């Protein structure tokens, strides 16, 4: 037990790096994923094809395989930059595929009749998006997006497998190596992850209530 009490800083720092890693990954995934979602529902056929191909290909590769490909494969062709950002790139591109599908499902959940009605009322394309489609789509995707964020946070632990030892799981592995007390160290790490995901879940619930429309 003294392993934990004498090393609170290790967990705090690990948690901070995990948060940093997850936030950067999610932002990149959001940017790429939104772009992909727009491609998937736009009327231009090649763009639709490209986005569909991207999603099916990337979604079909295990994250650890993709990480190893980026971390050990890219340097073979001369692309080397910081390990942290290499991992963020790989994870961001991976989760973008999932995010794209979530966003697309949200947009699809708005009945086409509403768009047609809005256009008939004379709203411009921008107004249709801003006042009719996006608010409703956003509401439908709050929970799926929260689930995705949870997956991003939990799977950020895979970074430890490719050398980002500063994040929570990596720090726990280091601590365990020194004191050989896997029960306490990993239980503490598990508790940290549970707290993080609980916080995300609560925030999503609050957001959903705020965005709810009483009919």
């Amino acid at each position: 037990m003294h392993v934990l009490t004498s090393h609170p800083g290790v967990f705090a720092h690990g948690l901070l790096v995990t948060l940093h890693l997850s936030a950067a990954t999610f932002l990149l995934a959001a940017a790429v994923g939104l772009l992909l979602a727009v491609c998937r529902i736009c009327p231009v056929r090649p763009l639709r094809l490209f986005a569909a191909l991207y999603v099916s290909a990337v979604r079909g590769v295990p994250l650890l395989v993709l990480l190893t490909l980026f971390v050990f494969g890219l340097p073979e062709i001369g692309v080397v930059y910081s390990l942290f950002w290499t991992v963020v790139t790989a994870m961001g591109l991976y989760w973008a595929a999932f995010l794209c599908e979530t966003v697309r499902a949200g947009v699809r959940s708005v009945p086409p009749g509403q768009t047609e009605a809005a256009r008939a009322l004379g709203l411009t394309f921008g107004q249709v998006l801003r006042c009719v489609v996006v608010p409703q789509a956003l509401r439908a995707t709050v929970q799926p997006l929260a689930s995705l964020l949870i997956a991003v946070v939990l799977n950020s632990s895979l970074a430890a497998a490719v050398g980002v030892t500063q994040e929570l799981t990596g720090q726990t592995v280091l601590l365990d190596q020194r004191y050989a007390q896997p029960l306490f160290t990993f239980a503490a790490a598990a508790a940290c992850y549970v707290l993080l995901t609980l916080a995300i879940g609560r925030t999503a619930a609050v957001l959903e209530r705020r965005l709810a429309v009483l009919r």
Partner: protein
Amino acid sequence: MLSTVRGRRRAPLAAAAAAAALVLASACSGSSDTVVPGAPAAAGKKADTSAIDRLIADEKPASASLMPAGSTAAKIKEAGTLVVGGTQTAALFSQLDPTTGKVEGFDAALSRLLAKYIIGKPDTKLVNVTAATREALLKNHSVDAVIATYTITDERAKAVNFAGPYYVDGLGIQLREDQKGIASLDDLKGRTVTTQSGSTAAAVVEERVPSAKIQLFDTNTECLQALRQGRADAYVLDQGVLAGNAGTHPDVKVVAGTYGEQPYGIGLPLDRPDFKTFVNDWLRKIEADGTWATLWKNTIGTQVPGPVPTPPAIG
């Protein structure tokens, strides 16, 4: 934006996506695979495998009185193979030779010698272990013994029995051929240091150079790649393993000098104390009859300079 035609069949697309995924996956497994076909052969002196084969042929099986019915050794003899936890990637100690398909090195030869001693034939089955999985595999009896540059520590001795030590190494520092300015552990301040997860090196670096950024990977291959690709400034591990790396990869070198003592033991299940005595007696025998010295000369001695060291005292 909402006028997309939906519900179109996209079978060819799905097939293409699957193919792309396959290509991605196979490209990746190639880069991280532990067995590297066509890896560059060891530069300089090559380990003399025929001398080791002769050693194994000369090894006499243990007399039946040493293996009473019900003892661990007798059970292994009955099973017909010695299941050894090891690796295929530690040059000089236990490395797969892609041209012969055999695992060669000090540890690999030791496991074959032990199999010959117990069973009468050098029949071993190699189970790949990492520094993180060794204790667990011994505890659940997936392996009879672990011979894998396994450093004896007090913490580990609580989980497994150690026979030996059969070799003493120290931590060394590996750099890229063109690197300058790192001559000792103290020069690693603030730099990125890679090492194997589960090895003793990480704890030593953390203690001696707290400002060093530690990068952990599971295997020797990955650590070496991280160093060669410039992700890490130095690779700290047992010098014998590093010397093996330098033998197979001309673009890395080993800094002179070692830190601390890393006594290697043969890991055995904690609940088989009879087997520890048995293996210790055998180690004493091969150290006394010159087998150990011949083995060292033909494996580690091909890369580590100096005369044959005195084998460490057993127990």
